[in-house]
């Protein structure tokens, strides 16, 4: 049918020789303080700062792209962007499909956020974002898991009484607990998942080496610690 014309049109799109390498940074844009869209609609947050600093050190031009969390890995391996920098914990399952740089944020415990101190964390209703490691943890823990599409909805579910508590990364929950009198962190922290690293295609070893070196440098001169202290209130830099 229309294919020959379409292909011709696509071929025509190509321009001249490649210029300086542009690295496309894929993020979700909905997970403060790691990454979110600020009032101007731009990607902002801890990872924006880290990513920009890394690109500067590695001498790369970087471009920020947002993508839905659900399809963030398929779009990386299919080449729609070159890195994932979206608060993604390094897990063995993910490591089988993509490669990670060394961590730029230490393993962060997960925590429960609830509307009352007496929330039942083992037998009650626990909310989590669908497809997260926390959802898997709740399913295995014996509590009743209720899954929502976005992190926002999990918080809303606790506010309106749909769920007793929400299990998510502690750094994500802390601002909510601090600002909303009705919400508090309860129970013990849960250690799931490794540190947070940048995800890259397994075939992109060269780019990974560049970012790895840049992260090492940032850890060494303390600039990474400074960024962590800037974005995560009350934390001291671990590196």
């Amino acid at each position, binding site marked *: 049918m229309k294919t020959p014309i379409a292909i011709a049109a696509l071929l025509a799109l190509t321009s001249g020789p*490649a210029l300086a390498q542009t*690295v496309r940074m894929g993020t979700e844009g*909905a997970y403060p303080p790691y990454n979110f869209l600020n009032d101007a*609609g731009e990607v902002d947050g801890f990872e924006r700062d880290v990513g920009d600093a890394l690109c500067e050190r590695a001498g790369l031009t970087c471009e920020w792209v947002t*993508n839905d969390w659900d*399809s963030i890995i398929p779009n990386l*391996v*299919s*080449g729609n962007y070159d890195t994932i920098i979206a608060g993604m914990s390094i897990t063995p399952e993910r490591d089988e499909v993509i490669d990670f740089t060394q961590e730029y944020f230490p393993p962060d415990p997960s925590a429960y956020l609830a509307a009352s101190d007496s929330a039942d964390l083992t037998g009650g209703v626990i909310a989590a974002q669908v497809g997260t490691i926390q959802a898997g943890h709740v399913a295995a823990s014996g509590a009743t898991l209720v899954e929502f599409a976005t992190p926002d909805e999990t*918080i809303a579910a606790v506010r309106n009484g749909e769920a007793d508590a929400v299990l998510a990364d502690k750094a994500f929950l802390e601002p909510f607990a601090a600002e909303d009198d009705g919400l508090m962190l309860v129970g013990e922290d849960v250690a799931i998942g490794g540190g947070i690293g940048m995800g890259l295609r397994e075939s992109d070893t060269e780019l990974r080496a560049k970012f790895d070196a840049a992260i090492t440098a940032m850890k060494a001169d303390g600039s990474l610690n400074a960024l962590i202290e800037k974005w995560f209130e009350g934390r001291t830099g671990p590196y």
Partner: protein
Amino acid sequence: MLPYCADPDTLSGLTWLSCYLTTGKHMAFYLSFLTVMALLLVTAPTALLFGFGGAVAARSRIPPLRWLGLAYTSIVRGVPDIAFFLFFVIALDQAFEWVRHKVKCPDWTEAVRQGNDFVVCAAAKLPLSTAPQWMHEIYGFALAVLTFAIVFGAFAANVLSGAMRAVPRAQTETAEAYGMSRRQVFRRVTVPQMWVYALPGLSNLWMLLVKSTPLLFLLGVEDIVYWARELGGSKTARFSDYPHGDWRMWYFLALLVFYLLLTRVSEIILDRLMARLTHGQATVGADTRERAA
């Protein structure tokens, strides 16, 4: 940005609201309405083209072509559109890059599929990784249009092949009597006549298309639903100058009003179009219009 919005914390009431509603994020939200409208306007003719191709293929006298046409329409119509959207865009993108890869880098020796990775040579990337962001957005938009067009083309093919069958046999017979070939009959008689039969079905399809646009965000286009979710979600004061609770309900109500208006306007326009097309064809027009009611 309005001049008095520098320090939103000090504002209240309507002034606060006027600042809140003019942030960069909200501007992107308003722009996304245009994106949706543009998508609708581009997709409709593209889908019609696919539909026409499908309908012609389905009534072809060459068996493989006929089977292809029939398979296209029945498979795509049997599957929920959402299931298509979830994997089809990536597949389409990979297919294009693969073709370009074969054409542009014939002496590339490495495999395109390396484990999970899909790797093509840099010149085959679409768009090139050096291309500015707007090129990527246009390309994403084009992929979305193509996906929508393929899905809705299957429905349009069904409508059009019904309309081709509805052209009275006497008309085509007369044309044959004048010595026209099969191809000429199709081009000069069937196609010009079928539109009036197809219009009720096509208007319904347009309504369907309008109502499936909330799924656009699945295709990676930042559409109105994406922004409504993003803007409506609760914001803490640390990360926004305009902290607020969960306002998604208001944003979604706004979307509801938008869609109802769009439906109403479309209904009025399509009714007028139908009246004009059937002008002077009182019997058929009255009949089809009644059935479309």
